[in-house]
């Protein structure tokens, strides 16, 4: 069992922990841990010698994913009363169950992928697919905007790992470009969450539907009729 396998299984475990937990603080800390886990991957995968480029990518990835983002997230959350996810669309136990099923599917799918023949690290592709799925579930099934941003980060971690498997030595500029996109994206989402919270005193995204012009038509009509 090599270091990479251990890191990959830790990645899967953090995904599962995020699917099963309800505290926003735990989500942020797990996302920071994931940043370190995927950040050190290029060191483990690459050839024995570590170039300056690799070191730079590793340093920036870890700095952005596990220092900058968690700091940003906890700064955003500081003013909120909401410390935990309430009433998710899919419950925690059900999410965990979905996660186990998805892990089985990921293992099965990655066995049939052509990377399997060349791959010396059997758990990288399943872990990557599973992280993408876990991120999607977090985005779709939770109400708080903070959780959805973190789900986006989890998904991106999965894509990052898949990228390492598929393109072992992608150019430095591509890596940094993706990272820059991510930073801009998370900053924008952070600003948006801040504004949502300031306007409406909550960050439940499902209540944002009440903003729009269209409303369920009968509701006002009934109230009009009820008035004598």
């Amino acid at each position, binding site marked *: 069992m090599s270091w990479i396998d251990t890191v990959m299984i830790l990645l899967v475990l953090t995904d599962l922990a995020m699917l*099963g937990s309800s505290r926003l603080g735990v989500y942020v800390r797990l996302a920071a841990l994931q940043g370190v886990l995927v950040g050190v991957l290029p060191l483990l995968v690459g050839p024995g010698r570590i170039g300056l480029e690799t070191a730079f990518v590793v340093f920036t990835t870890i700095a952005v994913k596990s220092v900058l983002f968690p700091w940003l997230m906890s700064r955003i959350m500081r003013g909120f009363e909401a410390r935990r996810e309430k009433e998710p669309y899919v419950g925690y136990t059900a999410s965990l169950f979905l996660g186990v099923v998805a892990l089985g599917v990921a293992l099965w799918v990655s066995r049939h992928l052509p990377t399997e023949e060349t791959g010396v690290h059997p758990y990288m592709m399943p872990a990557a697919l599973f992280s993408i799925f876990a991120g999607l579930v977090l985005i779709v099934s939770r109400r708080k905007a903070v959780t959805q941003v973190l789900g986006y980060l989890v998904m991106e971690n999965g894509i990052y790992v898949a990228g390492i498997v598929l393109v072992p030595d992608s150019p430095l500029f591509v890596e940094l470009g993706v990272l820059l996109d991510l930073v801009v994206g998370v900053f924008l989402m952070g600003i948006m969450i801040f504004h949502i919270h300031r306007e409406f005193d909550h960050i439940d995204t499902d209540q944002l539907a009440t903003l729009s012009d269209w409303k369920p038509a009968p509701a006002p009509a009934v109230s009009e009729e009820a008035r004598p």
Partner: protein
Amino acid sequence: MKAIGLIHYVLALALAPLLLGTINRVKALFAGRHGPPLFQVYFDLGKLLRKGAVYSRTTTWVFRSGPVVALAATALALGMIPMAGQAAPLAFTGDVFVAVYLLGLARFFTVLAALDTGSAFEGMGASREVQFSALAEPALLVGLVALGRLTHSLSLSPAYAGVGPELWSAGGVSLALLAVAFFVVLLAENARIPFDDPNTHLELTMIHEVMVLDHGGPDFALITYGASLKLWLFASLLAGLIIPVRQGPEWLDTAAALGGVFVVGCAVGMVESCMARLRLLRVPQILFAALVFSALAFLLQMR
């Protein structure tokens, strides 16, 4: 069948109440008390056996058979649990399933006896016991099958004989996952603290103790002894995983395995001292997490 397996079995039967005493002693030490003597459970058993039994007129033979069947099934299951890498007295292909479902049979009769009293209180406890064990049982079974897959054997004795330093370096992650899952199942199945409080008898949130409220005298002695055997069974399952000593002569291995069981007991005592009881709603979540750990260990072996 080798003599050493029988010796291990007799040792387990004799020392099981001592494990309960150890846990109580560790808890007392953590609380800053002196605590009951280590052999208190033996004294309790002796006292209970000398008493007479009282049976309600509403109960039937089911009530009387509950403790007997539960103890017999648990003792039989314990006979399939290997120790120190030696084969257990009962070892055959598929004994994994037999052992797990003998425990299931013991639980079934405990639940039936509780329902037979007609007390609503005991019925509530029975319902909870069944609900939680529905989650704990698959966690244990999937975990044991994953272990069988790691060691290429569906019998407990060869499977545990195959656990060693080599297996830990080859599949250490799976074994660690299994150890966590087994520990959670141990706490849940033996009504230890994060899931149930073994000390309370009059709390609405208790699970196991409430089912045995109407048993007294010799019947309660059987139940207590059965509970200690069950605790020993789970502790030796866990200890065989995490402390696989396969060096030296047989007596040294046996001593190491016994030490491992008591180390697990101390760990249980520490967990009980440091944690509060979980809310009842949280219990299925934690058990499901244990099931996830087992399933993950199993899936990692599917490749």
